[in-house]
């Protein structure tokens, strides 16, 4: 196939956010090829009392291991999935991750709905298009998507859907919903 010279390679970035243990890694693994990434980050004062630097007081960076997912749509068009770090002290990485992101999936667990408030606040403030995907855990009481929208006080145009991130078809549906939403936001901004 001839893509012509105007078809330079395109990479897109999607963020997977949400509280600790909500299924971010499971979602990425269900739909994409997982690759490891090491980053060395500057130790912020947030790490004081958590990172043991006794004896190495001059140490100002720490290694943060993270995974990312890669979905090849076709040669020259790749979608990357980055999970946002769950711990609060890695907030500084969010700005780097969300730079130029196409959009974000905020995963929610109805048993701990407040866990996703920081993610929602962050993306609302930054103007990053996002959707809320409610991961339906076994044994958790089932709610309607609309109940979750009200509980989270979301704008009416933010898509909310129920999902089971262990299932590939469901994970796929989550990503399609996000990209459709991002497309809507993009075309609205160009109008």
């Amino acid at each position, binding site marked *: 196939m001839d893509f012509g010279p105007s078809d330079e390679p395109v990479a*897109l*970035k999607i963020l997977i956010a949400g509280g600790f243990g909500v299924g971010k890694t499971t979602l990425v693994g269900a739909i994409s090829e997982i690759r490891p990434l*090491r*980053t060395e*980050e500057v130790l912020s004062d947030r790490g004081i009392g958590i990172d043991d630097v006794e004896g190495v007081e001059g140490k100002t*960076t720490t290694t943060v291991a993270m995974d990312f997912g890669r979905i090849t749509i076709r040669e020259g068009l790749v979608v990357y999935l980055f999970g946002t770090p769950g711990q609060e002290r890695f907030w500084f990485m969010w700005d780097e991750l969300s730079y130029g992101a196409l959009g974000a999936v905020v995963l929610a667990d109805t048993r701990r709905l407040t866990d996703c408030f920081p993610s929602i606040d962050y993306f609302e403030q930054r103007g990053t298009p996002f959707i809320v995907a409610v991961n339906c855990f076994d044994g958790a009481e089932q709610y309607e998507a609309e109940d979750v929208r009200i509980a989270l006080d979301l704008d009416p145009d933010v898509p909310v859907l129920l999902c089971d991130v262990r299932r590939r078809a469901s994970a*796929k549906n989550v990503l399609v919903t996000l990209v459709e939403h991002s497309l809507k936001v993009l075309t609205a901004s160009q109008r």
Partner: protein
Amino acid sequence: MTQWMDEEAGPVVRPYALIGGRTRSSGDELDLIAMVTATGAVTSSGFVPGPEQERILSLVTTATSVADVASELDLPLGVVRVLLGDLQDHQLISIGRASASERILKEVINGLRAL
């Protein structure tokens, strides 16, 4: 060597030794998904790419993202950015960052559905 060392032993050379202890370069601002492509230019001005930079150059004969380069080389992102910065300064690589158009997003939606 392999019979004495495994990943648990840690790297034989500390990552920042590869870049002469520097933590700053023109590669600082490289986005995770910026696409790196070798230009095929001949090195000039006496710059000799190090072994890791040679590995990068052979990896990016087709466009590869910064995240994939770091993952493939199993080096921290900060180190990879410095290595890439040097290569960029000497015009050995070009960095592309195409933005998403409506056409591309539609293609992604169809591609995801077809997975």
